[in-house]
């Protein structure tokens, strides 16, 4: 049974449709990430689930209860806000104990639970401080602690790591992952950072302008994107998109001077049709396959590997991974890829399989 069902939820602010017929199923104990660019409606959806934002239409079911018209306090969810939203006038201990106090738990049990959470998150020395006396990462832990202390049906995280520096972000990301593995509670996590999504999620929901573009496991989104938006959004550096035309025999694409065999596609494409070819940078460094020649502009060296930025003869810019050598500016190198690695998209950006 799904722990959270979001069914055909729509919401608009005036003329702006912020959520457009969004449906998501979240399994018991799973970790689902809502991923999308800034302003696509992720927070709006999360707030709707928490009961902080009324929705125009649709149904939200948590566990076996239809909570669509219940106020936030009756939904039994815990939320970590993007801004942390700690109570500024309460100490760390009071912040974490607040949800228990609101549920009328007695002092002794409450104190024990707060101490347990503090131990888990390693914030014991901070318990008597005020939020403004904490660093960003410490506030983050307190906000997570306030959610964890309660054992709710559902955890909601709204971009909890977006304000942190890279090192702390990686560390807390691992901590959240560990946490989920140890307590096995249902979590919905919002982010616009695809690395976070790929590393944390059991299932990713990609949103764009209030619509779901694709739902799937991290691997399936990476390997088998439904459209050019998902293909471009997932993976760093971004997937390369090349203009191509279907050749006379209908069995190959012509991209620049290259001829790409597409007999593996189930769909038969008519001659002369314009399509887009998507190839990931990491698939352009093969021993054999279709060749493209790239004139190099910049090489980013990352230690174990490098990314080469350059342009094809057609003028299209391409990023390619390079494991063996590190070509410099002005050099021309040969890229090779397997035709089966290429993803084909039509004029609207939909995938052709």
């Amino acid at each position, binding site marked *: 049974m799904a722990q959270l069902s979001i069914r055909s939820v729509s919401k608009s602010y005036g003329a702006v449709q912020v959520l457009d017929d969004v449906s998501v199923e979240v399994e018991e104990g799973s970790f689902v990430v809502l991923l999308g660019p800034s302003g696509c409606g992720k927070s709006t959806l999360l*707030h709707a689930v928490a009961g902080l934002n009324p929705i125009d239409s649709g149904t939200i079911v948590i566990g076996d209860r239809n909570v669509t018209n219940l106020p*936030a306090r009756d939904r039994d969810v*815990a939320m970590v806000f993007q801004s942390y*939203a*700690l109570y*500024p*006038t309460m100490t760390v201990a009071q912040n974490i104990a607040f949800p228990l106090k*609101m*549920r009328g738990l007695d002092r002794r049990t409450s104190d024990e639970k707060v101490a347990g959470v503090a131990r888990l998150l390693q914030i014991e020395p901070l318990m008597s401080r005020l939020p403004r006396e904490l660093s960003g990462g410490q506030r983050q832990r307190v906000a997570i602690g306030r959610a964890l202390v*309660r054992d709710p049906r559902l955890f909601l995280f709204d971009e909890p790591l977006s304000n942190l520096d890279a090192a702390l972000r990686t560390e807390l990301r691992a901590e959240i992952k560990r946490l989920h593995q140890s307590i096995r509670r249902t979590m919905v996590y919002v982010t616009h950072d695809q690395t976070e999504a790929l590393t944390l999620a059991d299932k990713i929901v990609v949103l764009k302008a209030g619509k779901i573009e694709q739902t799937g496991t991290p691997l399936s989104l990476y390997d088998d994107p439904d459209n050019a938006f998902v293909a471009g959004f997932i993976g760093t550096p971004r997937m390369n998109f090349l203009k191509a035309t279907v050749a006379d025999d209908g069995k190959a694409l012509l991209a620049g001077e290259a001829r790409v065999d597409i007999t593996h596609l189930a769909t038969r494409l008519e001659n002369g049709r314009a399509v887009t070819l998507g190839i990931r940078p990491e698939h352009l460094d093969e021993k054999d396959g279709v060749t493209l020649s790239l004139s190099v502009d910049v090489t980013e060296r990352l230690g174990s590997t490098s990314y080469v930025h350059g342009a094809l003869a057609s003028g299209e810019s391409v990023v390619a991974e390079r494991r063996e050598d590190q070509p410099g500016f002005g050099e021309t190198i040969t890229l090779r890829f397997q035709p089966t690695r290429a993803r084909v998209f039509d004029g609207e950006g939909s995938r052709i399989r």
Partner: protein
Amino acid sequence: MSTVATASDPTRHFFQPVIVCLTVASVALTLFVIWISLHDLSLMRAGREKFVGLDNYIRFLGDPRAMAALWRTVLFTTLATVIEIALGLAVVLFLDRNFAMKRLVRTLLLVPIIMTPVVVGLTWRFLFDSATGMANYLLSLVGIAQVDWLGSPRIALFAVLIADIWQWTPFVILLVMAALESAPTDPLNAARVDGAREWQVTWYVLLPMLRRALAIVALIRAIDSIKAFDLFYIMTRGGPALSTETLNYYGYIVAFTNFDISYSLAIAIILTIFTNVALLTMYSVLFPKTGDR
């Protein structure tokens, strides 16, 4: 103290002379006032004053009219401050964060504040007129007997209080509204998710966040109420039967009716000391040293 100017900061040439002038002026004035209050200067006996030490202060302690005025000042200040803060806060919370005619309401709120006290006093005097006033007319509509608002010693102080509340509650509303608008809303939502009812959100999260603003508004209103003069002068002139005579007003009477300048200044100094002690106590209660918990 993040803006302490270092010795090399050239802007000190501008602000230091100003500070020096202001300090010298206020210290000199205070000393002069204390000096006079230690004499028996009276315009009735001009040129024959002599040093009398603390006589004026001792006289104050034994002056029942002064003591009654002091008590009245305390009563008026406490009531005015508490009621204005409570009422203003209630209105702000009731008006919610966003409502349709907010700008209009805000403009209307400014009207009592910018009205001169003379006009306010006169208006309320007409309203409270026992024979022709609107207040009694309205009471008669709901079947309550006539009240002699400004003529009864037991009621007159409260009539002035009502006028003061009418004039200054909007000030509280404006400041608290501004504080509310700049307060973050996420903690309120967090409290709702954490299971708080609306009154609990207000009590445990919102009000503590507004505490500083409320404390400052309360201080301003308390200082103003202690010094209140104009409404009393226009509406009651301290009467009837001295029932609305505050210490400030009594000092004025002593100086300009009895021409007893030294005693009047002694009263002024006592009022100042009293105000300072009261406000410092209030301040240390509202802002404990350990931070703004």
